[in-house]
């Protein structure tokens, strides 16, 4: 049951509906008045207006099943020209032309545009009321806020001066934007629009620190940002599975109508906090886990035991199965088995089974996995100091290889390869006095030159390995080889695992685009001319052929690839990252790596990556109860057929997003069940099955659905689907679809769930009230915005990373955490409260920490108090700070300690180790920082939060009329 908002932050604009109608109206009037006052001078300037909604907006009526595949192709050349022209005109307006372009192209697609008609209808409203609302029947709270929607600028539709060449998508820079904006177009209190930080704070206040017991069906978990403890009582922890909505619509019609995607984000190996119980391991001996005979679902709390416990009915396919004799147990008066609480598989949402030989490759128990370190020893990596740094680090790092719980030393074997355009394998057998190097220069057909002594137990071969690691930097110290190969080294890894009959992980430390003559040779195909064109997608597409086959080989062998890149220029990350992202691996990139500067960051990442819990050679199956099924999977996965998700490895940070579709009606009574079963090999070489179960509600009331939506999960879903669509579609289409779908979801809510209100009001469901800001941020991410400022590789990297992200990571990525430090309480141990990601929140005399899970900024205002500067940097004032600030010294004073404590607390939460960037106000690198102020207008294009709300509102209104 929703409770009244705990905070009074929304002040006058938030009200309880129903009995307080009077107050509500009053409020509305007040704000209208307020608006008029501000808008008045603008009206005199005869600002241009929006045209009326297109007469026949047929495309909004029925939405295609899979919107990304059915987008109408581009317009004819003439209309193209027109589009450009229009956008040129629009570019002069303050309204971010992103949306104008969408608008226009939508119109063009509808073919309803009369070329002679003025584009902008002057008598259209220049202001709108936007209402954000949640309207369950009784306890409905409306968030009403009124926004001015002004096109600004003084130019009319025809008289507008063209603002230079606009590549279809004007990149606006802080200075330029201000100039073009003309007089300030809105003075609405930005606090009045829904605040993410507020929502996070509220949830933390309401549910943080509490125990979340998973005993109820369709229960909505706390936000990912909140601190809570999970108690598994029959449903999987939200750390493992999180749904877009916890109430599924009963019919596919309803689902289509509301456009809310039904999905779940599964992080099968999610790290469990120390205070929660780790997964129980169930061993049924030689018989293996009990399964439904028909659908093969595993025994779980949802199975119904009948017939005195002799049989059970499968919750997924309703098949009635015999209970095996050894598993028989009497039922109690409630019809539950007597041993319910003794058996994890009957009482818990998540647990593991020991798999029998039937679940192993070739019916042989698997060997423990192996880690192979493949070090590029070409000129770049030697010069940057990487090789030396890495070899030194490995000596200690290898002590911390992941091991099975309760086991003294790791069973993971290690191997070493160095390479440039040829490969060097090392024999580090413990019996040897010194390591042996075996050079393979035949890269055309890769093979592993040795069987015995390549993959060794670190503890046994420690002396030889240390000897080797000492020698590697010297051996190549005066290399001048700059060419490298890439595909052959992965091939070599696969072959090595094949020969050793094990799965494992390759750690590749690579420097440059592989240009040496070998399979998988790449060339520079980075063409900035393609930005914002139909062909932009080719930049994100991996090259087919060699790498495609490699993916298959890797997955078949359970060979996960982790790629650490140290490039100084373009290296076709789209192709190079293809194998890692299909094998459950990660890609790390350190541009222009310098050991002294970036060494710590890299080593932190490496340590975390090597040590993290991981499972190998995994295959996952998502089973659902009747009426719906998993139709689509997004993530760092490989799929050979439509149901089996194959992952060479899956670690604690890997998440995949599953989309569900109806194929029948769902029953409100029984609800919906999801079982995710993951078969994998542990780091100790044990084959196991991990099962996560989740039950959801079903409802024929859309309001129920909207009420139990999970914005963070939704945005994860949208991010992944959009990022995948980037491969096949122009970004313009994707953005269009995202906005359309947002509008649809809101329009549907308005139509079906909200109480009637003025058309000028934008109504947002409570559970989705910050959805637009995330959506807007998603569309402004570097990957989605083609700007010459951002390198293709950087965009590709983001795309690849997001594909494997869980809800927590996407949340913070799309809404970074901005923490003011100037007023921090040195004595308290809690983190200072975050503020909204907007420039307005920054102050000249402030100091802010911003993190998005990948980057960490420390922003220093120009008028930052000298005392603070002194205590943090040990220099007298802001002006004394050096040009290049690379690190934050650790000083012995409370402020410095506190800041370091905050930073480490933040880092602890994140999957990646973040590099600290110190940014001074008005300094060049500030641009990088400002990109992450997601409520503001994007530096490389993209609307501000406010503008986006206005635009969405207009779309909603079009849909409603």
């Amino acid at each position, binding site marked *: 049951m929703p409770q009244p908002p705990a905070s009074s932050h929304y002040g006058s604009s938030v009200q309880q509906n129903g009995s307080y109608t009077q107050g509500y109206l009053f409020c509305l009037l007040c704000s209208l008045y307020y608006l008029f006052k501000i808008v008045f001078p603008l009206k005199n300037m005869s600002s241009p207006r929006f045209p009326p909604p297109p007469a026949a907006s047929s495309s909004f009526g029925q939405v295609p099943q899979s919107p990304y595949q059915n987008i109408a192709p581009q317009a004819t050349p003439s209309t193209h020209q027109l589009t450009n022209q229009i956008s040129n005109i629009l570019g002069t307006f303050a309204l971010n032309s992103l949306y104008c372009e969408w608008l226009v192209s939508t119109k063009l697609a509808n073919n309803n545009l009369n070329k002679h008609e003025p584009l902008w209808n002057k008598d259209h409203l220049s202001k709108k009321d936007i209402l954000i609302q949640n309207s369950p029947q009784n306890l409905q709270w409306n968030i009403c806020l009124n926004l001015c929607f002004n096109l600004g600028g003084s130019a009319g539709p025809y008289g507008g001066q063209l603002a230079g060449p606009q590549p279809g998508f004007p990149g606006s820079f802080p200075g330029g934007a201000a100039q073009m904006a003309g007089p300030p177009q809105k003075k609405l209190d930005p606090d009045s629009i829904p605040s993410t930080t507020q929502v996070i704070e509220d949830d933390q206040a309401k549910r943080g620190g509490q125990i979340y017991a998973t005993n109820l069906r369709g229960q909505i978990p706390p936000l990912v940002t909140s601190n809570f403890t999970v108690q598994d009582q029959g449903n999987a922890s939200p750390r493992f599975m999180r749904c877009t909505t916890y109430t599924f619509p009963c019919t596919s019609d309803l689902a289509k109508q509301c456009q809310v995607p039904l999905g779940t984000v599964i992080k099968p190996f999610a790290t469990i906090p120390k205070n929660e119980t780790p997964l129980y391991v169930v061993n049924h001996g030689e018989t293996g886990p009990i399964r439904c005979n028909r659908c093969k679902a595993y025994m779980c709390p949802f199975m119904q035991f009948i017939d005195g416990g002799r049989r059970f009915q499968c919750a997924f396919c309703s098949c009635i199965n015999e209970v095996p004799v050894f598993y028989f147990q009497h039922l109690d008066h409630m019809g539950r088995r007597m041993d319910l609480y003794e058996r994890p598989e009957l009482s818990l949402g998540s647990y593991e089974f020991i798999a029998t030989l039937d679940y192993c490759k070739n019916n042989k128990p698997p060997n423990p996995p192996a880690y192979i370190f493949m070090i590029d020893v070409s000129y770049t990596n030697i010069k940057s100091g990487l090789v030396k740094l890495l070899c030194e680090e490995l000596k200690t790092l290898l002590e911390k290889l992941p091991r099975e719980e309760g086991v003294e030393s790791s069973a993971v074997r290690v191997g070493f390869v160095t390479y440039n355009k040829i490969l060097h394998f090392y024999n580090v057998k413990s019996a040897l006095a010194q390591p*042996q*190097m075996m050079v393979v220069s035949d890269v055309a057909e890769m093979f592993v030159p*040795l*069987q015995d002594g390549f993959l060794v137990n670190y503890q046994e071969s420690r002396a030889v390995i240390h000897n080797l690691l000492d020698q590697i930097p010297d051996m190549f110290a005066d290399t001048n080889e700059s060419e490298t190969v890439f595909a052959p080294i992965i091939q070599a890894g696969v072959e090595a695992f094949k020969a050793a009959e094990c799965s494992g992980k390759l750690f590749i430390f690579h420097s440059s685009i592989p240009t040496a003559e070998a399979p998988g040779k790449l060339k520079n195909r980075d063409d900035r001319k393609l930005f914002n064109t139909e062909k932009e997608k080719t930049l994100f597409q991996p090259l087919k052929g060699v790498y495609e086959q490699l993916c298959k080989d890797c997955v078949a062998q359970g060979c996960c690839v982790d790629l650490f890149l140290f490039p100084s220029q373009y290296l076709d990350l789209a192709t190079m990252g293809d194998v890692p992202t299909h094998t459950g691996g990660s890609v790390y990139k350190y541009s222009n790596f310098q050991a002294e500067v970036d060494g710590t960051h890299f080593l932190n990442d490496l340590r975390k990556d090597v040590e993290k819990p991981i499972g190998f050679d995994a295959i996952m199956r998502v089973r659902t109860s009747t009426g719906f099924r998993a139709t689509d999977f997004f993530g760092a996965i490989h799929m050979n057929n439509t149901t089996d998700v194959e992952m060479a490895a899956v670690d604690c940070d890997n998440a995949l997003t599953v989309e569900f579709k109806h194929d029948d009606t769902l029953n409100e009574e029984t609800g919906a069940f999801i079982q995710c079963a993951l078969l994998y090999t542990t780091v100790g070489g044990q084959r196991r099955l991990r099962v996560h179960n989740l039950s959801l509600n079903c409802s024929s009331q859309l309001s129920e659905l909207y009420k139990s939506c999970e914005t963070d999960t939704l945005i994860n879903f949208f991010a992944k689907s959009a990022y995948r669509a980037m491969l096949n579609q122009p970004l313009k289409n994707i953005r269009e679809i995202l906005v359309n779908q947002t509008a649809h979801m809101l329009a549907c809510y308005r139509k079906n769930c909200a109480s009637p209100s003025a058309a000028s009001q934008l109504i947002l469901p409570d559970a989705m009230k910050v959805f637009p800001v995330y959506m807007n941020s998603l569309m402004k991410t570097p990957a989605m915005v083609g700007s010459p400022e951002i390198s293709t590789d950087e965009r590709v990297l983001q795309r690849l990373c997001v594909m494997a992200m869980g809800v927590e990571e996407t949340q913070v990525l799309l809404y970074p955490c901005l923490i003011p430090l100037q007023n921090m309480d040195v004595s308290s141990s809690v983190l200072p409260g975050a503020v909204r990601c907007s420039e307005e929140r920054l102050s000249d005399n402030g100091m802010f920490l911003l993190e998005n899970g990948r980057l960490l900024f420390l922003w220093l205002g120009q008028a930052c108090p000298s005392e603070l500067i002194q205590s943090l940097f040990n220099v007298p004032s802001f002006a004394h700070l050096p040009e290049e600030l690379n690190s934050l010294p650790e000083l012995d004073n409370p402020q410095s300690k506190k800041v370091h404590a905050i930073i480490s607390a933040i880092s602890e939460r994140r999957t990646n180790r973040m590099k600290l960037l110190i940014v001074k106000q008005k300094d060049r690198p500030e641009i990088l920082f400002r990109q992450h102020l997601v409520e503001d207008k994007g530096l490389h294009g993209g609307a501000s939060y406010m503008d986006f709300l206005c635009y969405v509102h207009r779309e909603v209104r079009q849909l409603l009329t």
Partner: protein
Amino acid sequence: MATFQEFIQQNEDRDGVRFSWNVWPSSRLEATRMVVPVASLFTPLKERPDLPPIQYEPVLCSRATCRAVLNPLCQVDYRAKLWACNFCYQRNQFPPTYAGISEVNQPAELLPQFSTIEYVVQRGPQMPLNFLYVVDTCMEDEDLQALKESLQMSLSLLPPTALVGLITFGRMVQVHELGCEGISKSYVFRGTKDLNAKQLQEMLGLTKPAGQQAGRGPQTTQVPLSNRFLQPVHKIDMNLTDLLGELQRDPWPVPQGKRPLRSLGVALSIAVGLLECTFPNTGARIMTFIGGPATQGPGMVVGDELKTPIRSWHDIEKDNAKFVKKATKHYEALANRAAANGHIIDIYACALDQTGLLEMKCCTNHTGGYMVMADSFNTSLFKQTFQRVFTKDVQGAFKMAFAGTLEIKTSREIKISGAIGPCVSLNAKGPCVSENEIGTGGTCQWKICGLDPSTTLALYFEVVNQHNAPIPQGGRGAVQYVTQYQHSSGQRRIRVTTIARNWADAQSQIQSIAASFDQEASAILMARLAVYRAESEEGPDVLRWLDRQLIRLFMFHLRRSPFLQVFNNSPDESSYYRHQFMRQDLTQSLIMIQPILYAYSFNGPPEPVLLDSSSILPDRILLMDTFFQILIYHGETVSQWRKAGYQDMPEYENFRHLLQAPVDDAQEILHSRFPMPRYIDTEHGGSQARFLLSKVNPSQTHNNMYSWGQESGAPILTDDVSLQVFMDHLKKLAVSSAA
């Protein structure tokens, strides 16, 4: 005037040359009627301790097509300082260094006793010697250990400046980088993929950086004196010893019922390629040690399934040996590449089963390499033989020589048809090349990559003088053999042998021609021809051809020898025997064809006896030398005495001496012969006695034993015809006109 016997002996001792005819018929027609062609056995490096090498270079005929070397047969005009070439009659000026020449002050090359003379070329860099070991690691530990020891030992026999390299192979091929500190490096290659020299060069990183080469310019394209894979012995002695010591058996698992995967073809290819791109035309030995057949990749001779045995002669005849042709082609190509670069390939095959010598034979045969076949590396046969490869002469230089070429120059009346022996053609056309090819023909120059003092070539000539253009009485035909080679000291040397023989008109002087016939040389020359044909043609045809050609005693044994008979021999054995036959000198060749049998008894001193079953008597000890085997056979009675232990009794000391005598003689042979023969000590009824029984003339068999006196000799259980029957047949054939 000495007898022809003496003349022949003298010629052989001085020049290493033996002609089938020592007086030549003066016309083509007559020559063809003689059946046995004018031909010579020539031993280029005939040991001549009395011949000091001359420290200057030979004087050549200035005619471009001739370039014959000044020799004692040339006419010299001492006053005009001119000499006339005895081959083309070109008149040549002596070079300025010969200004002091006069009748009393003649250079050595004009003295008749220097019909064979050796020059040392002073120009050019000192060439290093290369020894590249190619070692199979798919063998039993015991074998490998023995091999490793032999190899380590061999390092001490190499001159310190010689370059050595190591390639090991099993499933993969490893080229070891030598002289690395702290870590041992090797380049590994897949055993199934052949690489050409260029690819190999790139993969081993032996290409010179382009910039560097351009900067240095073409004038200083000096061969690098060593590279990472071939290093001087003195530098990497310890390193290589350790490396060899650490050598392990191929670690790849061999499943039940399979042969180990042995990438011999690729290993050899890489060895050839490595030398090809680093030391072309420099003396080099690729020493290949194999413990079994190649089972994968190019050059494989048998699959890895143990249930399919390696091909036999039967399979080959039935065209049922699917790998033979392809493998042969592979090795032939390698042999030709190695030969073109003057590199030798040796094969030391030690295994109980066949190892594919049939397919690989051209590697040794074309390059003058050694082929050694033994049962195991852990036998004295291998160990001694291998050690003997590094035999040194009195000056302490290796007896072996490298990268040789032989050029033949002839008088106008005679032309060279071809050569048979461990050589390849250099395709040098010239006026003295005959159109009729015998053996490797169509050229007057051959490459002999590996030479030793016993290496002997058979050279076949054709008399081209027409019947109607008679040669004046007393005219002599001359042949000059010019052998250039790399001495093991690194010097280039040229040995020139010039011989002349009288012409005779066959019609008027048939007697003198007949008298000049060298029976032994002819036999070997014909045998070589026969073996050469046997290699390339079907067996029975060759026998028939041979029967038509010649009727002599030797031919009976030759017919029965393993050189022509494949029955009872594996293809590998045949190849091995033929290989040895094609390179050994006359004496050894004779032994191979007709083994020598000595008898030891109380009746008198040891005596050679007929190679006949009648020689096998109970009270005799027989010593048989077949070149490949040294066999001591104790007659029935002798062996009974021995079993009774009479030799240990002081009163029967004479018996002990009798037993010891053949052993001592055998040891003497064993010590001098290369390759070391198999030593067999057997007795009457012993299983090993079969070696003897198969060689002797079966004058008594189970078919006729009762018609002969039962007392003499032992009957042989065979269906082979005896010499007697053979002769009877031949007599009949010889007189019938049908032949």
